[in-house]
């Protein structure tokens, strides 16, 4: 038991005395959680600039332009006289989309000929495109369905004609959970979970790398296995406690600060967090233990954050990944962590809905336990064998 508390206290001593480790395991977490979500503070991109080319110059086209300008998604920032001008503005990134009203639009509509307005945007910037296109389509749709067209087309069919313009069947679409469809609310919870796991990986890598270097010159000094094991368990418990505090900070303060909706019940979230944190700590020893020097973890493991974030399936649906990649994803705690915690906390799911992810995490704990212990022991107590030049 004494060895357990030695291991437990060692974590905090190291975090507060080793500036490098503290910077990752306390500093980076606080800084990243405030700095990474910054771009997404407005949540929804509004008032995207667009260009309009009005070749018709009629009362009807001006009405259409007014309606589009009034839409919250877009703002007309350029009134061009030729399509080429709008295309140039689009290419230079000055506007995110354009609308071309063909000459003779009003005449076509009056004569009952089909009229086509072309709109479009730069599809290489998806969020801009989505806002621009939906804004323009809604405005044009409203006008198409609206009084103007109906009045012009009215040939005595009355009520029926009105329905024609609207289309007889309309879908009523309701976004669930992230009801404002905010970009921040979508990204921030997943990134916070990733930050927990990845700072553990980098921090533990730095701890073990430092120990590994320090012990290189010393002879192997393995002690009583039971005592060592108790110290390792204490060490892991210390890390889990530290990160539980970080998780409370994220859920309690970070989500509030960045206006991320929460529907979850705290006890369920806490019960889910337990195996996630244990699995992440063991995972951190598994990969961080490969580092034989203090700085290696940052240089070798930092880049994994980007693929691991997308492996969680929060952005790109998992069913579109090859099966082998889906299995690889399940071997990383952040996948089950993101899938489970987002469903519990952001979507208000019941614990029974995420039970399989919870068991996935416990399975990872069992799978990682021995390699984690092995890596910790060889770093702390000296290792035999060759020393790569890391």
């Amino acid at each position, binding site marked *: 038991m004494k060895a357990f508390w030695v291991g437990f206290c060692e974590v905090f001593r190291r975090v507060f005395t080793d500036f490098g480790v503290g910077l990752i395991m306390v500093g980076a977490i606080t800084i990243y959680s405030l700095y990474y979500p910054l771009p997404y503070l407005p949540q929804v991109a509004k008032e995207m600039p667009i260009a309009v080319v009005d070749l018709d110059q009629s009362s009807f086209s001006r009405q259409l332009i007014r309606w589009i300008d009034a839409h919250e998604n877009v703002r007309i920032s350029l009134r061009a006289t030729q399509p080429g001008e709008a295309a140039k503005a689009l290419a230079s990134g000055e506007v995110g989309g354009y609308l071309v009203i063909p000459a003779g639009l009003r005449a076509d509509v009056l004569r009952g000929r089909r009229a086509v307005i*072309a709109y479009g945007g730069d599809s290489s910037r998806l969020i801009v495109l989505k806002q621009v296109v939906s804004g323009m389509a809604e405005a044009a749709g409203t006008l198409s369905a609206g009084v103007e067209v109906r009045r012009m087309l009215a040939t005595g069919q009355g009520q029926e004609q009105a329905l*024609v313009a609207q289309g007889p069947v309309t879908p009523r679409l309701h976004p669930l959970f992230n009801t404002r469809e905010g970009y921040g609310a979508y990204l921030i919870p997943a990134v916070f979970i990733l930050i927990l796991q990845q700072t553990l990986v980098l921090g533990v890598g730095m701890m073990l790398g430092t120990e590994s270097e320090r012990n290189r010159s010393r002879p192997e000094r393995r002690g009583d296995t039971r005592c060592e094991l108790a110290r390792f368990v204490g060490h892991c418990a210390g890390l889990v406690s530290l990160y539980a505090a970080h998780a409370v900070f994220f859920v309690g303060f970070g989500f509030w600060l960045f206006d991320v909706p929460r529907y979850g019940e705290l006890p369920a979230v806490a019960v889910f967090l337990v195996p996630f944190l244990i699995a992440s700590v063991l995972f951190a020893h598994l990969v961080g233990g490969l580092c034989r020097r203090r700085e290696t973890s940052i240089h070798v493991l930092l880049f994994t954050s980007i693929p691991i974030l997308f492996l969680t399936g929060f952005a790109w649906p998992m069913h579109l990944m090859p099966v082998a990649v889906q299995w690889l994803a399940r071997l990383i705690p952040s996948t089950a962590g993101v899938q489970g915690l987002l469903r519990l906390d952001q979507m208000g799911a019941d614990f029974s809905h995420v039970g399989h992810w919870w068991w996935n995490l416990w399975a990872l704990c069992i799978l990682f336990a021995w390699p984690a212990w092995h890596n910790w022991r060889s770093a702390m107590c000296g290792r035999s064998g060759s020393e790569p030049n890391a």
Partner: protein
Amino acid sequence: MKGFRPALRREWADLVGSPLVQAQLLWLPVAGIALLWVIFFRGVAVDIPVAVIDEDRTSLSRQLVRMIDATPGLNVSEQSGSVPEARDAVWRGDVEAIVLVPRDFSNDLKRGLQSEFVAWYNAQFLLTGNTIARELQLAGLTFSATVEARGRLARGETPEAVAINVMPLSTRRDTLYNPQLNYVPFLLNGLAFALLQMFAMLAAVRVVGRELREGTAGAWLESADGRTFSAVLAKLILPTVAYVLIGVAWLAALHGWLGWPMNGSWPLVLGGVLLLVLAYETLGLLTVAVTANYRFASSVAAFITAPAFAFCGLTYPLEAMPDIARIWGSIQPLTAFIRMYLDQAVGGATVAASSWQVVFPALVVAVGMVIAVPLLGWRARHPEYWGSR
């Protein structure tokens, strides 16, 4: 250049002797890009599972369900009996949306009344949510047009008149370059260069930082005849060559093998890759020179490069960010590169239009080197700055 060759020989020996250095220069970035590629290889979101509750149970409602199933984005994977049952499936993650066709759906249609179907979609997973909304909207329009046209034809209207009356004012959506909204050329491409900038800055920190930390900075300068510039140049040659080659190979795969068009200037884009790598290497050198601490410089590099992708304006527009995030984003060389790449490859912009995106990283390199090289030389000549970590 005097001193350059022996210093480079020293770097080469280090590379040949250390599998870890080889991994950092070659295998890790290649593995990272390859893994991202495998994740996104489908490119377009298809077959997103949705649950349908058909309370109408008529041939019309079944036709609507078939149309929803036929959209490329959606796949009707469950027929649920009730909303709570379907909602459980959303929570479990079996389906991403619920479509409810109400009881009076076909009755209303037959009586010439406005009819509707209701859908709830999971917007927490925003990307799939957007696809679902788009596809359902489309399915609704197609279904409307079919029903409407059938009615009018039955009443004896000519097909031409039907075509006009069904949709008096229609819109045509043109999306440049990437009409299917494929994720490979824009998101995956951006992520590939986000990985490269990370490796480039860390490599520069590492090659010089380790000499200071291990106390071998003196030997390093000596190997270059005491010429700081030659010594630094020899340090940067191998990472620069490796990362530029990886970037070029990736672009060749994207535009050659996968066949995405390059509408602009290849030389400019390739020059941009070189400048991107050099700019981040310069930032790395500058960080080591200022901090004289390998470990701290590594952390700073991580702080700058790990979230750079979020600030580069590719996923979320720069214009919509708060001022502080926009300014921070616009001074990152990655942002300039992404902008230049999109303007060239997608927009087919002129070379002149992209000049600032090339001049900016070049300025970073020039100004950064003028400060970093002499400062590094000074640090390397003063052993009191060695060994910090």
